[in-house]
Structures are given as structure tokens and as C-alpha cells.
């Protein structure tokens, strides 16, 4: 069986589904037998999920307006990029 340390070092690839099938099976076996690592794995997965779902990438209207104004000034100043 893998040690907990080995499991942890593969956790990122495991969560990203980047491991080989063989390693994946070993990791899966480890978490069925090690409640500690199961919790770490489950909560790390949820950590990624909550961030994926939450932070929107809409830009405030005033920030957008000032950006466009700055770019227009730039284009007027120097015309074509180099």
C-alpha cells in the first residue's frame, strides 16, 4: 500500500485525473483504506469546486470604461503598434 506521504504527493495529479490507470487504482485503494487521506482528498476536491463556482469574472462598468479610454488615448498617441 502507498504511504500517506506518497498519496499526498500524487494528490494534484489524481484530482486533475492525470495519473496512469495503474497509479489511479493504487491511490483509490489507499483512500478506501485510509480515512485520513479520504478526508483530505474529498475536502481538497471541494475546495477546488467552491472556487470554480464562485468567483465571477465580470468587470465593473467604471473599470471597463477607464480601460477603454486609456487604450484609445494610447492608440491616438502612438498610432500603430511598433
Amino acid at each position, binding site marked *: 500500500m502507498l504511504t500517506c*506521504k506518497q498519496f*499526498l*504527493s500524487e*494528490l*494534484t*495529479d489524481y*484530482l*486533475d485525473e*492525470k495519473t496512469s490507470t495503474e497509479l489511479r487504482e493504487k491511490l483509490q485503494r489507499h483512500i478506501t483504506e485510509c*480515512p*485520513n487521506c479520504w*478526508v*483530505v482528498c*474529498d*475536502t*481538497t476536491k*471541494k*475546495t*477546488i469546486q*467552491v*472556487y*470554480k*463556482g*464562485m*468567483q*465571477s*469574472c*465580470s*468587470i465593473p462598468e467604471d*473599470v*471597463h470604461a*477607464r*480601460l*477603454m479610454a*486609456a*487604450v*484609445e488615448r*494610447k*492608440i491616438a498617441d*502612438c*498610432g*500603430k*503598434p*511598433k
Partner: protein
Amino acid sequence: MPAEATPVAPADAPSDELDLVSRARAGDGAAFSLLIDRYEGRIFRLAMNITQNREDAEDVLQEAFLKAYEHLDQFQGNSKFYTWIVRIAVNQALMKLRKRKSDRTISLDEQIDTGEDMVVREVAAWDPDPEERYSREEMNGILTEAIDGLLPIYRTVFTLRDVDGLSTEETAEALDLSVPAVKSRLLRARLQLRDKLTRFFKRKGDDAFAYM
């Protein structure tokens, strides 16, 4: 005249991207505006996450697009425009941080340990749906505070990889880091965030339950 090799855009880059860039390079402001519309939100969010300051983030956003416009001729076309501009934005954002904390060098290459001492402190199970305990606003506050508690290197890698959805390889390219370096930073970042969030999301009544 020898034929110039036409750059081939990465398979998952929007198909009109090279076209927009070459039009912008020829002085077409409308084409550049389209590129801005496409990426400004993600760049702003990234800048917010790295600088943790709205004013700085806005500066970074403007500087990134202005620099991109100035140096459009350096865009090779064999990576995505977004990966290219992210690199500019990250450099600007780190410069802001350095200016603010002038006594400390902040770099993505900051020596970090390789995981030997990687300790998971809190091993408490979470609610199946931890986010349902909080309002959207509260959740945003909790998540932002947790990210802000990370070192800049970890914040940056986590935001690009897990919030913005870049691949490990793209993150490495954008930050000029090796793939293993991105992976080790990502693992650190994920585990540290997990530790920080456990306080809010752990299953009620689990405090006395020891796994070890």
C-alpha cells in the same frame, strides 16, 4: 522570396484570434477592443487575486493591455493571446506588490520546499454541500480572505490553474516556470486553502472525532 511560415494557433484558441491580433497590429483599434472584451474580466480577476487591492488591480489591467498593444509585434501566435497577456499582467501585478512591500522581494521563484514538510493540519470532514451554509456574499468573503492569506506565488498559480482554468502547461508558460514547479505550488496552494476553509465548512459535531 522565401515563404514565411504561418504561425499555427493552438488548437483550442478561438479561431479568429490570430486574425484579430494581426488586424490590431495593423492599427485596427476595433480589433484590439474585441480582444479586450474577451479577456479583460479574467485579467482583472487575476490582478485582484494577486494584488488584493482594487486600485492596483485596475492599474495592472490597464498596464497589461497598453503594454500588449505596444508589443503586439512580439506576440508569436504559437501560444494563445491570453497566455501571452497573462504573463505581462502577472509581471505588472508582482511589481505592484514589490513596490508596496519594498523591503521584501517577491518573486515566483521564491524558494519553497518540495513537500517534505507538507503537513495537513486539520483533518475534519466537510459538509457535503458546504456552500449552502452561507449566503453568496458570505461565501465570497470567505473565499477571498482565504486566497489573500496565501503567499503571492501560491495565489497566482491557484488563480490561473483552478479559478481561471488554464492547464498546468499553460500556467507554466504564462509564469515562466517548469511544469513540476507549477504542480508543487498548486498542491501547496490547494492544501493551504483547504486548511483555511475547514474552519468554515467542517461538519458540525466532528470536532472530537479523531481520525488518527
